[in-house]
């Protein structure tokens, strides 16, 4: 995975969206074996039946979340774990691991943050009727990428 950027300080965090997108693209290519491409957010909102999240603590405090529908989450699990990966737990494990790797890859691209920012354990929420709220009150960056034509939202919410 490519490393380093010129974005060192929090004052540039509004410019981090391309770094998140690069981190997502690299993780999908390596872990899922396919290329994802950035899509227009307004036209491609995923049905958020699965939300994987990882907490960031230390130099950066916030969360990184990956959201998609159940079919897409299942497809990611099969690509990562094989065609027999069809249980709810395997799907949650796969999406949680993708989220964890995106967060780790993203923070490693921020010069000087890699060793001062730590990740918590991933957690995954699934279901047909839930709302997800973060108490982070700072910058929120979101991108939507297409995986086999299906939208996946990746969101970074930071504490101010």
């Amino acid at each position, binding site marked *: 995975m490519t490393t380093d950027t010129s974005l060192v300080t929090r004052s540039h965090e509004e410019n981090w969206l391309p770094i998140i997108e690069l981190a997502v693209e690299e993780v999908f290519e390596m872990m899922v074996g396919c290329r994802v491409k950035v899509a227009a957010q307004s036209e491609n909102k995923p049905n958020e039946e699965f939300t994987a999240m990882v907490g960031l*603590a*230390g130099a950066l405090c916030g969360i990184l979340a990956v959201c998609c529908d159940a079919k897409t989450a299942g497809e990611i699990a099969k690509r990562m774990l094989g065609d027999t990966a069809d249980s709810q737990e395997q799907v949650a*494990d796969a999406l949680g691991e993708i989220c964890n790797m995106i967060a780790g890859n993203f923070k490693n691209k921020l010069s000087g943050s890699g060793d001062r920012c730590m*990740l*918590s354990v991933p*957690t995954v929420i*699934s279901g047909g009727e839930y*709302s*997800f709220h973060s108490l982070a009150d700072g910058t929120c960056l979101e991108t939507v990428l297409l995986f086999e034509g299906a939208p996946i939202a990746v969101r970074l919410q930071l504490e101010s």
Partner: protein
Amino acid sequence: MCCGKTMTPVTAFAKPSRGQNWLPLLERATQEVFEIMLGCQVTRAEPSEPKVPGGFTAIVGLAGALCGVVTVCCGAKTAGQIAKAMLGDTADSAGQAVDALGEMCNMIAGNFKNKLTGTDERCMLSVPSVISGGEYRFHSLAQGNSMETVVLFEDAPVSIRLQLQN
């Protein structure tokens, strides 16, 4: 808000092997936060108490020396009562219930880690998140020790769980 109580700082568990004997610390951290933030004493529920309905789940991540998550889970009505006890009787919106439960979870996690001698400065918390809804599953990828305590707040169960990574 504060009623003169303080959170007790140190415990006898200087270097516990991961997760061992930490349930009493989690229980004490929970009781202290309810007493200071909501002005009420909570009692530990018996194992036979009914399971907590999954209306609201607040999550705080732990990173560093301890890696895992702390969750606080209760029904929607209980989350609303916690918000009113914390913010006043006018706190009746779903957003205020979310904020109040997230803050409770954050304080319980912070109080718990402060009780672990030598861990405090090497363990950090992420921002709280809260899930609400009628139908959802919560799955943590933590593979280590897991411990849970259930307390009664206004006769309704509130579950506090610590899940650690190996």
